[in-house]
C-alpha cells in the first residue's frame, strides 16, 4: 500500500481554495446548513471538476470535498446529477447520451432522486407509483418522499411500477421526469437538520417514452447501475469538519483548572478518539475511490462499509462533542451565545439524518452480511 499525497498535493489544495474563494456566492455563506443551491456556482463546480479532477487519484476527490467542507460549502445537492449523468452515459439511449447527459454535465439540469415511498421506506423495490402506457405516452400516478433538492431540480429520476403481476424487482421502470410537467407537485418537508427535503406528488403526469431510462420492467437494473455510482468521500466530509471544529473549540476555550480545554486530559482524549475514527473513515472512503479510479474490482462490502463507518462515527462524535462543550451547546447556530457558531448543535441535529439518508445503517449491514460474508438473507425477498 502507498499513502503518499501526490507531489502537487499542496498546490492542488491551494487551487481548490482559490476556486471556492472566487466563485462561491457571498449570500450563500452562513446558509450552508440549509443546503442552498446556486445554478451558476453549480456550473462552475462541474467545469472545474472536469478540468482539474483527473479521476485518477483518490486523494484528489477527498481533498476537494474536505476543502469544500472547510470553506463552509455544501456540495451534496450536486451528487445525484453526476450519478445519473454517468448512468445515462453507461446505459442510456443514443439520444440520452448525446442530448441529455451533456446537459447534466454542463449544469443545465439538476437531478433529484424520486425513489423512496411513504409506505415502503428502505424497501425501494416495493415502489407503488404507477406508470401506465397510454398510446405513446406514459401516465404516472403516485407519491415519493425524501425527494431532496426537488425545489431546485429540473428533473426527477423516478422509480415507478409498470407491472403489478411480476415479482417486485421485475416490474419496475425508471423515468427522467421534467419537474415542470403538469401534475408534478413539490411539497416541502422540513427536517431536524434545517434543510428541507420534499414530498413529490404525481397526478396524471404525461411523459413521452423517450423519458424512459433502461428497459420497461428493467428499472431495478438501472437502479443497480445508478447506486453503484455513489461516490465515497462525496458529502462524507462532515466528520472531518466536526473534528476540526472540536480542536478549534478546545484550543480557544478556557478550562477552570488547566488553562485551555485542549490541556484537559479528558477533553483531549475524547477528541483523539474521534480523530482515530476520522482517519479510519477517510481511509475506507479513499479505498473505495481508489478502486473506482483504477478499475480494481470492488468488494461488494466496501462502498456500504465506508458509508456505514463514516456516518456512525459522525453520530458518535456529534453526541460526544455536544455533551463536551457544555450548557451553551443547546443554543442553535447564528443565535447569541452559540458555541463555535452552533456547529455542535447542528451536527447533533444532522447526525440522525446522515445515518438514514443514502441507505440506513441496517441496510448497509445487510449488504455486507449477504454479499460480502455470504450469510443467509434474513429479510423477505
Amino acid at each position, binding site marked *: 500500500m502507498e499513502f503518499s499525497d501526490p507531489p502537487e498535493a499542496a498546490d492542488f489544495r491551494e487551487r481548490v481554495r482559490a476556486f471556492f474563494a472566487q466563485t462561491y456566492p457571498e449570500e450563500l455563506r452562513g446558509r450552508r446548513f440549509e443546503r442552498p443551491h446556486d445554478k451558476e456556482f453549480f456550473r462552475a463546480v462541474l467545469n472545474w471538476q472536469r478540468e482539474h479532477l483527473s479521476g485518477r487519484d483518490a486523494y484528489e476527490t477527498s481533498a476537494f470535498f474536505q476543502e469544500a467542507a472547510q470553506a463552509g460549502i455544501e456540495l451534496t445537492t450536486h451528487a445525484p446529477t453526476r450519478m445519473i449523468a454517468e448512468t445515462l452515459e453507461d446505459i442510456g439511449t443514443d439520444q440520452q447520451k448525446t442530448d441529455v447527459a451533456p446537459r447534466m454535465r454542463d449544469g443545465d439540469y439538476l437531478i433529484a432522486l424520486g425513489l423512496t415511498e411513504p409506505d415502503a421506506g428502505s424497501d425501494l423495490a416495493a415502489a407503488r407509483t404507477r406508470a401506465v402506457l397510454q398510446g405513446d405516452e406514459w401516465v404516472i400516478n403516485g407519491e415519493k418522499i425524501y425527494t431532496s433538492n426537488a425545489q431546485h431540480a429540473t428533473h426527477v429520476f423516478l422509480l415507478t411500477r409498470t407491472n403489478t403481476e411480476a415479482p417486485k424487482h421485475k416490474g419496475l421502470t425508471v423515468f427522467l421526469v421534467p419537474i415542470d410537467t403538469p401534475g408534478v407537485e413539490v411539497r416541502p418537508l422540513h427536517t431536524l437538520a434545517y434543510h428541507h427535503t420534499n414530498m413529490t406528488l404525481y397526478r396524471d403526469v404525461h411523459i413521452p417514452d423517450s423519458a424512459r431510462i433502461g428497459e420497461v420492467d428493467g428499472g431495478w437494473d438501472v437502479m443497480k447501475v445508478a447506486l453503484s455510482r455513489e461516490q465515497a468521500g462525496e458529502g462524507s466530509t462532515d466528520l472531518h469538519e466536526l473534528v476540526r471544529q472540536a480542536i478549534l473549540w478546545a484550543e480557544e476555550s478556557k478550562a477552570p483548572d488547566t488553562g485551555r480545554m485542549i490541556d484537559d*486530559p479528558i477533553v483531549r482524549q475524547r477528541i483523539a478518539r474521534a480523530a482515530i475514527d476520522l482517519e479510519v473513515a477517510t481511509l475506507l472512503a479513499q479505498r473505495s475511490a481508489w478502486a473506482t479510479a483504477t478499475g480494481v474490482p470492488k468488494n461488494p462490502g466496501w462502498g456500504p462499509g465506508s458509508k456505514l463507518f463514516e456516518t456512525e462515527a459522525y453520530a458518535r462524535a456529534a453526541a460526544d462533542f455536544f455533551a463536551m462543550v457544555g450548557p451553551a451547546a443547546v443554543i442553535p447556530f447564528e443565535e447569541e451565545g452559540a458555541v463555535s457558531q452552533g456547529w455542535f448543535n447542528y451536527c447533533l441535529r444532522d447526525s440522525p439524518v446522515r445515518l438514514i439518508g443514502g441507505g440506513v445503517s441496517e441496510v448497509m449491514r445487510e449488504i455486507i452480511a449477504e454479499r460480502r460474508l455470504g450469510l443467509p438473507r434474513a429479510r423477505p425477498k
Partner: protein
Amino acid sequence: MDFSLTDEQNELQAAFGRMFDEHATIAAVRAAEPVGFSSDLWQRLGELGIPYMASGRATDGVPATMSQLIVVAEEYGRRLAPVPLLESVTAARALDRAGVDIPESGIVTIALRQADRSGSLNLLAAGAVATKAVALIGDALVLTDLAGEPRFLSNLGSSPIANRVPGDRRTVLIAGAQAHPTFDLALNDWKVLVSAALVGLAGEAHRITLAYVKERKAFGVPIGWFQTVAHRLADSINDLDGSRILIHKAAWAIDSDDERAGRLTSMAYSYSTELAERITAECLHFHGGIGYTLEHDIQLYFRRAAAWPQALGDPRTELATLATRMFDGRRES
C-alpha cells in the same frame, strides 16, 4: 495512493502463510502451551529470515521495511504462532539503528517497560526464552545479557514471559539525550507490529465464527440468519478492514519518515487493541456454551487478544499518548 499489496508483500504473505499453515497448526499451538514457545517453529522462522531480515547489517543494507514486516506479523497473529516474532524483530530494528549486529546465537527480546527499583525486568516479553534484551536502563539504551535462570510465569496469553535481571555484560547502543527518543522509535515499531498481529488474530477468529454461524442451527435456521449476529459480524469485518489499512498507513509513515508516523502509530495501536478484544469476545459469544469450553479453539484467540497488549501495559493509555502527539506542538517521535 494504492490500497493493494505490493509484489514483495504478496510474496512474504505467501511464504510465511504457507510455513505457518503447515507448522503452526492449532495442534502445534496447543502443544506449545502453556509456555508458548516452539523451538522447532523458531528454527523454521530463522530459515525464512526472522529476525535477520529486519536488520540492514544482516541483509547488505536492504532490510525489510515495516510495510513488509507487518504482513509477516499479521500471518503470525493469524496462526497464534508460539514464537517471539514481534519482540525479536523489534529488537533487530533497534540494534540496526545503533549499527550493532544481531548476536549470532540466542534470542534477543525487547524490554518494553523499564526495570523496577531493584533492577528487575518484570513480566519481560519473551523473557522465558530470551538470552539478551534491548533495554532502556537509566539514560542508556543497551543490549544486555539476561542473568539467572528464567522462571516462566503462567499467564493468560500463554506467552513465554518471565521476570529477568539484566546481566553485567552490556553494550551501550545509545546514551544520553537520544536514548529515550530512540527507545520510543522501538516502541512504535512494536506497537505497529502487535497491531498487525492482532488484526491477523481477530480476522482468523472472525473467519472461524463466520463458518460456524452458517452451519450451526437454532430454532430451525442457521444462527447467522439472525440479524443481531449477522450485523455484528458485518460491522467487525468492516472495522477490521479499517484497522488493517490504518496499520499499513502507520508502517508506510515509519518507512518514509513521515512526520505523522508517531500519531498514526498511536491511532493504529489504540484502535486495533480495542477492536481485537471486542471481536474475539463477540466471536466467542456467538459460539454459545461450547465457546467457553477449553476444548474449543475460539478461547485461544480471546485470551491472546486481551493478553498480548499487556506486554507493554494498559493499551487504553495510548489515547493520552495520541493526544500528546496530536496537540503538543513538539515534533513527533
